[in-house]
């Protein structure tokens, strides 16, 4: 009887003290607050992209280069000549991001960036599996999934480095863009760079957590909450990529 009364009073006074109204530990709540503020930062960057994009006319529909077809030797110059890449029109992402490592001279639009998306989704899955293993206190499984997550993150960073190198080799700079308006290259470098820096930080934090898992720090502590916290951050990075992918490559 007294047990029931205690429960009802507890339920009534969410903010009455004695327990967290959010039913979550301090560390996880702070991580959520940080992610909220980070979400605002990324939103501002993507809204800035939308703003600039919306002030330019829509790209010219691509009727001359079909997927998997062979492309012109000097593709960028050729596209400038035929009027697809002009400074007064937004370029078609399909024509800008059409490269794939080790394959030259073939039009492979969005293939590489799709691969990057799948890599990041997969590393998110291994992260959440590490969190799940943490709940069962399965140290070996946590360590294994953390390694897979770190490898996924490193693979994504490698892909992004390759993407940037290709883009820069073709003449794109913060203040110069052979594909169209200057802002296109500038925003690409700023937004994917900021996201890439988040992935890099995530990988570094993941490595630290992984070493702690191996050292048995969390086993001694009795819970793997640190894995959950870094997991929240890692999923957020994946979440941001969903929108970077949507805005930069699809729209």
């Amino acid at each position: 009887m007294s047990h029931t009364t205690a429960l009802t009073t507890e339920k009534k006074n969410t903010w009455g003290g004695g327990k967290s109204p959010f039913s979550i530990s301090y560390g996880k709540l702070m991580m959520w607050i940080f992610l909220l503020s980070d979400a605002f930062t990324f939103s501002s960057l993507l809204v800035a992209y939308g703003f600039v994009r919306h002030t330019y006319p829509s790209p010219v529909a691509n009727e001359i280069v079909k997927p998997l077809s062979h492309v012109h030797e000097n593709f960028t110059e050729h596209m400038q000549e035929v009027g697809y890449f002009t400074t007064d029109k937004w370029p078609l992402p399909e024509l800008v991001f059409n490269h794939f490592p080790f394959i030259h001279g073939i039009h492979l639009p969005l293939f590489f960036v799709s691969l990057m998306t799948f890599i990041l989704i997969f590393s998110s899955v291994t992260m959440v599996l590490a969190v799940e293993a943490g709940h069962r206190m399965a140290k070996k499984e946590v360590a294994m999934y953390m390694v897979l997550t770190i490898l996924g993150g490193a693979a994504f960073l490698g892909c992004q480095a390759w993407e940037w190198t290709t883009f820069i080799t073709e003449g794109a700079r913060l203040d110069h863009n052979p594909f169209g308006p200057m802002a296109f290259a500038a925003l690409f470098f700023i937004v994917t760079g900021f996201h890439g820096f988040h992935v890099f930080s995530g990988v570094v934090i993941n490595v630290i957590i992984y070493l702690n898992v191996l050292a048995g720090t969390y086993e001694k502590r009795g819970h793997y909450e640190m894995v959950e916290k870094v997991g929240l951050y890692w999923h957020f990075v994946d979440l941001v990529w969903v929108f970077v992918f949507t805005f930069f490559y699809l729209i």
Partner: protein
Amino acid sequence: MENHEHLEHTESPKDMKKKIWVTFWILTALTVVDIGLYFMLIENHSMWKNVLFILLGLVKAYYIVSIFMHMKFEAKWLVNFIIYPMLFVGFLIALMLIESEFTAAIR
């Protein structure tokens, strides 16, 4: 810290693993749909195409936040506390789109 375990998971590890893999396949399928639609609608430049891609992005975001970030199983207060502030972003998008029409008009 004492009530830590009490607050956490009620679902069994097996259920959670299944949920994770189902979410993975949903996200993969949605990405494939995204790419497919991109090529199907490549000659279309209407606003509804952009809205369609953003909506697909939001569906993916829902699955990542609710399952991977465990938001679906958190307290109602926490969910509201994180989700409602994001509505301001919608406000910013509306303002900036109106403003960009003006910028384009005077260019």
